[in-house]
């Protein structure tokens, strides 16, 4: 049986926004960022192209996680899970590229 200690891990609130406005604003910003990313790619920025495209992608992913997936309202273990996953991917990709770059 669960005990009161597990309550510390639960989300502080189960309340949800009563207005859908944040969702509408989020999707409009996501569309704008998509258009900006496409426009920047047409400018052919050379070596800067990939970091800028990935930075915009990360910003968009953060917005999806924040507004659509409701990450701020998720429990602490769920938030830790999300951040650990991102860290593992960065470690994997960084390690593979770093290994090849230093040979």
């Amino acid at each position, binding site marked *: 049986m*669960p005990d009161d200690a597990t309550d510390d891990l*639960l989300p502080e609130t189960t309340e949800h926004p009563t207005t859908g406005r944040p969702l509408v604003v989020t999707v409009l910003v996501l*569309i704008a960022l998509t258009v900006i990313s496409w426009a920047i790619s047409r400018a052919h920025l050379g070596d800067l192209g990939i970091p800028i495209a*990935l930075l915009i992608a990360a910003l968009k992913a953060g917005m999806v996680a924040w*507004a659509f997936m409701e990450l701020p309202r998720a429990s602490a273990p769920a938030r830790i899970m999300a951040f650990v996953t991102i860290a593992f991917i960065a470690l994997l*990709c960084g390690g593979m590229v770093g290994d*090849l770059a230093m040979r």
Partner: protein
Amino acid sequence: MSDLADEIVYADRRQRDHALHLGMWLFLGSETLLFAGLFGLYAAYRSVYDADFAAGVDHNNATIGTANTLILIISSFFVAWSIHSLRANKRRMCIGSLLVAMLLGCTFLVLKLVEYSGHFAEGIEPGPHYSFAELPATGARTFFTLYYSMTGLHALHVIAGITILGWLALRVKRGRTIPERPVELELGGLYWHLVDLMWIFLWPLLYLTG
């Protein structure tokens, strides 16, 4: 799980929903790590065959890729809107939003098939079947093999997502997922948003960074 079993394992409904959400986040984490292997391979091979990868990206149809990005972002919005609608006790709006998201998901797949058929017609096929004379280098062959692996795996997730959204729409229609407890819809929504998240990163790597 039956209601009796729920009572034995969980103190209350809030705790049960919390456990379901945590389980879903763990599943999403494992799904993400499945893609991470492919992202890692892309990063490694790109650092070796940068020029060939750039040529492969330039050859891909950025218009279709960009359209698919917008389609998935808007579909993600409709899934979030369906949850918002159900919480507000607007079941018809919820079902309608889910159907629009499913339609957008199907449109994504149709565009992907159009793109694949164009590639096949040019001899751009995965692995040893590659015969595209314009980009004959090993790096280009590797790029397109990774392209098929990444987009193919993603397309399988889109198909699974559309199926889940359809099942959820039926549950809401039959009154089995209700405004007071929309947890199944929230979990299905999380899966669809992950599909969107993956594409948000695939799009620049496969269509923009030439």
